[in-house]
């Protein structure tokens, strides 16, 4: 697909830089039945971001945004660890599954809350999800009682740090979720309905789409993705930190979506693009480490990337900078019409 060409190009360029600066970058080896290598690590450490970004993609496709995913990451990790820490045996698989269930149910409930505020109450998405972004951190600390809950559970450790069939388990989870989303949106019809609501909400309503329910489902799903990411992150370090888990992941996720070619104005979305976008961000971090640039400058690179991507996406920028001598087309929106939107 043409739309994926240039994020793929950026990723390739980043990998190329690594090839030059790092020995054995593309080397993948099997040790003790597990796959190892820099490329595997990019996937492994990038897995939570990919998940959150996938959920965010659907939200953004509906013309929305979800700022609360970082908080949901922290809450779900905290809830799972709290449940496990109270188990008589932390290695009990049933107990761990129960804990995961409780954590994910909580995440979904929070997502439904976001969806309710956006769809039913009619609050702008950025504001509606800001509430949970602020309160959620407190909620996560409330769950952990302000401590960092440390657990020692082998089954739980599997989610973020374990291997299965030689592959890191996190990659398997991402693959399963990606396959699921791709199935539901592209094989089933959810994707079309989402793109339609994001592209023209009124036309969608008049075509009989139940946009309220759809929005709630999308926000709930986004929170579910964040919840799973939260499990991965806490499992990887075998502890839950209400304060720092998933800090700023919402911004990285939005960035990944935008880099992947899904417009913040809603409508068409690209799951593949989002995965590429998340991988670019993760590779950028890895690259900066590996070529010896101080890791602190990652943020500078990100600032640069956001600016360039957004400028390129802005029609006003393209019109002003790549101005051609064509006769300007008549405005399709009559001057008076824009005004009615806001009262």
């Amino acid at each position: 697909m043409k739309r994926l060409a240039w994020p793929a190009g950026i990723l390739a360029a980043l990998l190329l830089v690594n090839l030059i600066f790092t020995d054995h970058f593309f080397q993948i080896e099997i040790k003790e039945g597990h796959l190892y290598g820099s490329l595997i690590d990019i996937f492994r450490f990038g897995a939570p971001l990919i998940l959150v970004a996938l959920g965010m993609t659907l939200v953004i496709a509906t013309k929305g945004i979800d700022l609360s995913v970082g908080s949901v990451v922290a809450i779900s990790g905290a809830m799972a660890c709290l449940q496990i820490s109270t188990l008589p045996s932390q290695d009990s698989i049933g107990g761990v599954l129960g804990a995961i269930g409780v954590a994910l149910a909580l995440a979904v409930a929070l997502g439904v809350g976001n969806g309710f505020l956006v769809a039913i109450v009619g609050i702008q998405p950025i504001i509606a999800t800001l509430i949970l972004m602020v309160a959620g951190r407190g909620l996560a600390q409330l769950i952990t009682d302000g401590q960092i809950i440390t657990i020692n559970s082998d089954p739980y450790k599997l989610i973020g740090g374990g291997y299965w069939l030689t592959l890191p388990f996190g990659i398997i989870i991402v693959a399963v979720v990606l396959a699921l989303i791709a199935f539901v949106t592209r094989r089933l019809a959810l994707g079309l309905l989402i793109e339609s609501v994001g592209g023209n909400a009124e036309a969608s309503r008049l075509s009989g789409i139940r946009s309220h329910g759809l929005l709630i489902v999308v926000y709930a799903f986004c929170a579910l993705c964040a919840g799973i990411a939260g499990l991965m992150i806490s499992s990887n370090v075998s502890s839950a930190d209400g304060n720092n888990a998933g800090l700023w992941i919402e911004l990285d996720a939005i960035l990944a979506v935008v880099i992947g070619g899904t417009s913040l104005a809603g409508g068409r979305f690209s799951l593949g693009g989002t995965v590429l976008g998340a991988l670019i961000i993760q590779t950028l971090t890895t690259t900066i480490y590996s070529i010896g640039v101080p890791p602190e400058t990652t943020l500078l690179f990100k600032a640069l990337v956001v600016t360039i991507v957004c400028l390129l996406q802005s029609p006003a920028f393209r019109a002003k900078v790549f101005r051609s001598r064509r006769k300007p087309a008549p405005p399709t929106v009559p001057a008076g019409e824009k005004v009615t939107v806001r009262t």
Partner: protein
Amino acid sequence: MAEAILRMTGIGKEFPGVRALDGVDFRLLPGEVHALMGENGAGKSTLIKVLTGVYSIDSGEIELAGNRVAFAGPLEAQKAGISTVYQEVNLCRNLSVAENVFIGREPRKFGRIDWREMRRRTSDLLRQLDLPIDVAKPLSHYSLAIQQMVAIARAIDIDARVLILDEPTSSLDAGEVAQLFRVMRRLKEQGIAILFVSHFLDQIYEIADRMTILRNGRLVGEYVTAELPQVELVGKMIGRELAELERLDERPPARTSDTLVEASELGGRVAPFSLTIREGEVVGLAGLLGSGRTEIARLLFGADHAATGTLRIGGDQVTLRTPRAAMARGVAFCSENRREEGLVPELTVRENLILALQARRGWSRPVPRKKQDELVAKYIKALNIRPDNPEMLIRNLSGGNQQKVLLARWLILEPRLLILDEPTRGIDVGAKAEIQKLVVELSDGGMAVLFISAELDEVLRLSHKVAVLRDRRLVAELPNDDTLTTDVLMETIASGGAK
């Protein structure tokens, strides 16, 4: 007769594929209210936009008080003394009345805004317009009518010589209209030239001294209101459809099939009306733009909520809260506002085509791709959609082809009642004839059609009976027999059904 303050000569304006204005002459005298008349697409709004500098002109010239002018935007026009007040009022409702009159040129004392002086001057100004209101309150506190008058006050105080009122009355009640007219008369006395656009004929005949009529981007003529009977006005606005279209069969025989839809005293944004539609019957809605045609359609489709009355579909009494509920009852509605209520521009022809069907099936039961391709191929062929590439983005199609895709979106559902709101507007003659033929075929197949069009010939040719609307009121229901002609329809619209 006084010298014209504004004179537009030979104005031409072309958009890709459309000649919006073609050699139009227009003049405005000081101290008159001049109505600009015409149906959709006649070129009224283009003329206003050309005048106020929103668009540039391709040919012709504009003279203001004897000087040739060309404005780069509404702001420049305003500075030269041409102010426009739109229906939706371009003011800031969050600010006080006084600020809305003075913002950008607030009186200042020692460098700070002199609020007291600003309020005093606003009060004085509004009192001259018979509007003694508290000017310290936010504009949003007041009704739309008062907001419009505040906009007018701002325009006057900036020294407007020409005031354009673009459909100011569409959302006002009778009392508010009277108040607005009082203000307009007072301004007239002060020598201000007022260009007035309204779809309400009564209002035109009450307030306008003269009028200019446009049709299809051309000037029909300039008339003194008192000398032009209403029926002639309607005739001049609507015109006659020339023999461009192949004649369809003689008028269809009246239907005697079962009643499908029965609305009784149903009302909302239109006055309560009663209307029955039989199975296989084509009911035409005739009336000028803004007469309530679309409002009736939206009520029957559940897009708006009914405030009064009852609705029966297929014998069951129903309350339609959402379009979805109407669809479940077999009602389909193809909106006149393609861009905002029809197209999802970023989706392909195929996706737009199956959207309503998919919405009905829900997210979990996709229309199988093979079925999609069959349906799409069938309707592309049946409706002659060009180009015939289903994977093209719909925004790249021409207006007529977009319209056919939207029509197909509803036909796929095989509705029992199909509401078509201006399905032939702004599309080429060939596509128009195809859509008309389709309506006849659908009706023969047993589908009821509510057909809305500004073109009376078209309504007459297709309908079994015609409901006539005027000023948001259903004024007559006429069987389409030999006695019904476009003249009779025009007469009915002009007289409001009172013969």
